[in-house]
């Protein structure tokens, strides 16, 4: 892991955030943020509710206009690197009663490559089915999306991002409301993406699992508290700065990320 990390550091960052300030109605929710995400890492963004994590992802995707600063993805503004970026929004951000089925939603990931007006065809269909198999949802292809459980919805969104075949993935809470099995399946998939050299950024809420799942982390609470390799910056001091005094339960794991890592790799 360390060798890969240092290699990643040397090349151009996958995402470079400079002096980013975002405000809704005058009140900044992200304050002068600088962040480099090296290429090829699996990074967690952690921070309390309302810390601006979703806003940061949206700013990276040009979905909210920053009051100041800029974001470059793969050395270019998002506008130019758009087709190399995959996006998994928060599951609750869409209406799951929309009249369509799983296969159709997954194919939406190809719309960017198709451009305006052109319709998805056989190739898109096959890519979508392939991605569904990867998230073990192959048999749900024709299922109405209103009939999915929360974890299944999450996997559909993941499959939709996979068909984008991107180099950088931005995911807003991909583990939200999934059971342990699904969580393990998803993390295996994300690690696979990383081993293919892709960069994956996830908003993540479960502080216990950060050292097991991720090799890079950014701690955020309106300002950036810290970012870097998990082994270096994911410690009690930084967590306290991020969450206030409310993280006592964490100390055991946070102080010894290496041990936790070893424990997981054994089973």
């Amino acid at each position, binding site marked *: 892991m360390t060798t890969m990390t240092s290699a990643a550091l040397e090349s151009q960052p996958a995402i470079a955030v400079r002096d980013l300030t975002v405000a809704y*109605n005058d009140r900044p929710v992200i304050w002068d943020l600088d962040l480099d995400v090296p290429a090829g890492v699996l990074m967690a963004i952690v921070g309390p509710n309302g810390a601006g994590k979703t806003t940061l992802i*949206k700013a990276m*995707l*040009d*979905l909210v206009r920053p009051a100041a600063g800029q974001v470059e993805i793969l050395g270019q503004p998002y*506008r130019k690197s*758009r087709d190399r*970026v995959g*996006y998994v*929004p928060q599951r609750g*951000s*869409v*209406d799951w009663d*929309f*009249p*369509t*089925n799983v296969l159709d*939603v997954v194919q*939406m990931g190809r*719309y*960017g490559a*198709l451009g*305006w*007006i*052109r*319709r*998805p065809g056989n190739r898109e269909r096959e890519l979508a089915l392939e991605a569904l198999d990867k998230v073990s949802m192959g048999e749900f292809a024709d299922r*109405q999306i*209103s009939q999915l459980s929360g974890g299944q919805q999450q996997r559909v969104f993941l499959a*939709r991002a996979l068909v984008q075949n991107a180099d950088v993935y931005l995911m807003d809470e991909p583990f939200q409301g999934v059971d342990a099995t699904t969580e393990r399946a998803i993390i295996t998939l994300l690690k696979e993406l990383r081993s293919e050299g892709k960069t994956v950024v996830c908003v993540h809420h479960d502080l216990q699992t950060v050292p097991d799942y991720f090799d890079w982390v950014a701690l955020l609470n309106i300002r950036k508290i810290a970012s870097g390799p998990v082994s270096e910056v994911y410690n009690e001091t930084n967590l306290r700065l991020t969450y206030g005094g409310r993280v006592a339960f964490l100390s055991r794991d946070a102080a010894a990320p290496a041990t936790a890592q070893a424990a997981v790799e054994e089973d």
Partner: protein
Amino acid sequence: MFDLSTAQMEIQLVAIVVAVACALVGVFLVLRQMAMMSDAITHSILPGIVVAFFIVQDLSSPFLIIGAAATGVLTVSLVELLERTRLVREDAAIGIVFPALFSIGVILIARFARGIHLDLDVVLLGEIAFVPFNRTEIFGIDLGPTALVMMSVILLINLIFILLFYKELKLATFDTGLAAALGFSPALIHYGLMSLVSVTAVGAFDAVGAILVVALIVGPPAIAYLLTDQLRLMLVYSAGIGVVVAVLGYWMARMLDASIAGSMASMVGIIFVVAYLLAPQRGLVASYLRRRRQRWEFAGIMLAIHLFNHEGLPSAEQENRVEHLQDHLNWNPDFADRAVRWAERNRIIVRRNSHLFLTEEGREQAREAIVR
């Protein structure tokens, strides 16, 4: 009665074309949970029509439509502007913008346009019965009633827009964030759609009045939504329901000697109630039947699990007696009796002198239910 005059044919054709044009754009309004916006648009286009009329001084000018459609889009923008201040919610914003614009229209008519055809009855209910008298000619050739020509063009525009941008409309409606991230400007799609709704509403307005326009934009899509869960079919059904509403509404008006627009609006209501009751999946009747069936299925499985748990144990002798179910599953004798007979009929259990035994099939089902 079916010996139709040309005029009657033409009235029905106009009704059909209006209904289908409204039903198509309505699908996306309903899915975007913006049904109320159609109300706002149809009412606030009034000042647009009046102002455009002052400028061109001609009631049949196409500029009237453009002026009115512009007001429609203005309405949407104003509502969104108000909403974005976060001081009021969308419904309240609509409630502020639409009466304001509508009353401006009414005042303008009362103050400056008294005596001309722009009177309020027509604005609210339209007069589709007079549609055949106002005709469009090109080089002396009669193309048909002006309303028919105009609405056919609008319908065609709607169809082309939806066919061309089906994928973009679907994506922007389902997931605005992804649409934006992929570079399909949701704002552009949104205002494109709103312009279509405005143009459609203005065109339809003249023939059928403001109230029916709303009924036709919201009704058929809402009914279609009960009948299918595929967007493609929803569009087809919605258009089809539009046709049915137009034809049945027309004949209802003939038979009752009532207003055609009013009858069409009532027909929307009637079909909605019928669909609400009888829709194959979501209808009340279907879900009642499904619940009733599930009740027995559930009872059968419970019975199977109960027998399965005691199978082969010494207690089985006790537990598998019909009378015993009362105590253990908390079933009253009547229900227990019917559940046992249901389970027998479906070969989950067999009864041998008042003792119950699982069949192979029943054992399988119990096992499955337990591990699931």
